[in-house]
């Protein structure tokens, strides 16, 4: 038993020590100045816009996908689910290369839609949103699908027998019931989008104010302005903690 404790302590240390290290190096006295410097403000604004944009994309397209995965029966559904989860385990930089090969100027689609307004996507804020949505959407889809599966369908059936039409039924019965799962999925999706680096920098590049989000700014500043980079790191750490606290009922085992 003692050995289990020791091994567990090593695991805990591996995960917690880097965070403590970060806190220890934090420029507390100049934190406010660092976080309000023009570079930090640009990255902050861009990250908020893009992560909320990615969350919107995930909600609009991901919830229907979760619905199909949970409710429809069709051949290849388990394959589809595996494909949906893939971006969660795929190295993000590979996702970025994949996005380039589809939406890049010489990409599968990019070569044809390159002259549409807002295209080509690489080097644009839209490109950042797409990269973040690619990486983060699975979190929303999987959580929502699980919620839909656990839901007692008799409520929906009862609503149907009372004459509620499908959309009305979804809005007034299904949605409130899967609400907690959907909210948890949305929070994780947003947090993942906020932290996205690999796919973003590969697909959208790194231009302050346009495509340089917080993680890219941290990477770019780490050597030249380490205090600024660490201040931004602390900010992202705080946001991540806040998301976890908000989800405590689900993820921290509070029962």
């Amino acid at each position, binding site marked *: 038993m003692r050995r289990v404790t020791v*091994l567990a302590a090593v695991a805990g240390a591996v995960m917690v020590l880097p965070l403590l290290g970060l806190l220890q190096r934090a420029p507390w006295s100049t934190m406010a100045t660092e976080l309000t410097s023009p570079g930090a403000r640009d990255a902050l604004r861009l990250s908020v816009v893009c992560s909320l944009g990615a969350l919107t994309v995930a909600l609009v397209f991901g919830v229907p996908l979760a619905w199909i995965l949970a409710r429809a029966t069709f051949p290849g559904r388990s394959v589809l689910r595996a494909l949906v989860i893939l971006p969660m385990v795929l190295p993000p930089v590979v996702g970025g290369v994949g996005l380039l090969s589809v939406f*890049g100027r010489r990409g599968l689609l990019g070569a044809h839609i390159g002259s549409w307004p807002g295209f080509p996507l690489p080097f644009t804020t839209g490109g950042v949103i797409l990269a973040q949505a690619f990486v983060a959407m699975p979190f929303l889809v999987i959580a929502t699908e699980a919620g839909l599966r656990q839901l007692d369908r008799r409520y929906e059936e009862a609503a149907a027998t009372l004459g509620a039409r499908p959309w009305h039924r979804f809005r007034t019965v299904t949605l409130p019931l899967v609400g907690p799962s959907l909210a948890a999925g949305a929070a994780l999706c947003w947090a993942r989008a906020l932290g996205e680096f690999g796919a973003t920098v590969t697909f959208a590049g790194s231009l302050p104010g346009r495509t340089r989000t917080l993680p890219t700014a941290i990477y770019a500043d780490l*050597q030249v302005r380490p205090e600024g980079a660490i201040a931004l790191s602390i900010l992202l750490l705080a946001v991540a903690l806040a998301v976890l606290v908000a989800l405590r009922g689900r993820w921290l085992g509070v029962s």
Partner: protein
Amino acid sequence: MRRVAGALISLLLIAGCAGPGRGEVTVLAAASLAEAFADLGASFSFAGSQQLVAQVEAGAPVDVVATADTESMARLVRAGLVDEPAEFARNRLAIAVEPGNPRRIAALADLDRDGLRVVLADPSVPAGRYARDVLDRAGVRVRPVSLELDVKAVARKVAAGEADAAVVYATDVRPPARVEIPDPANVIASYPVAVVRSTANRAGAQAFVDRLLGPPGRRALAERGFLLP
């Protein structure tokens, strides 16, 4: 339980053995050196020079460091982290264009054209700083679509067709995709190499530096288009 611990320990041992053993030399080198260094017999880690500095400062267990500018190296010298550096190569900037030069770019002055997608290295990277100097001196105001974090990433954007042009080292692009920048407008990037003071393999590190400064290194660098001091 015992089996799990045993497996873990053997895993650690294997990982330890796979690391640089006795006689092996680990070299941190600027990204632009990747091809030229490939056959010089050491294990390499390539990155932007500003990152190499940060890695040495953080105590990376390496033997030799080679940067793409004297500024980065000077920072390590001032911190007492490396021995006296020696210049082993020089480089110039060039404009990278798509093969066949479809946008007909002939000089730096063409880079401020509307609708042209130009990529530069971030000013925190030597290549980005040199590019900014060269463009400033030529009086060309470029609005880049991206400031990449190492020079290879810059060259890749043009090679992949995502950007129309970029300012990179002459050694990063081959002639059909390279537009020269004439000497008076160009800069000379100087590449210094130094042994890291904390090396556990001083003889091996020194041997690598000697090889780099001697005929094998000069040959490899010249083949890749570097200028020799």
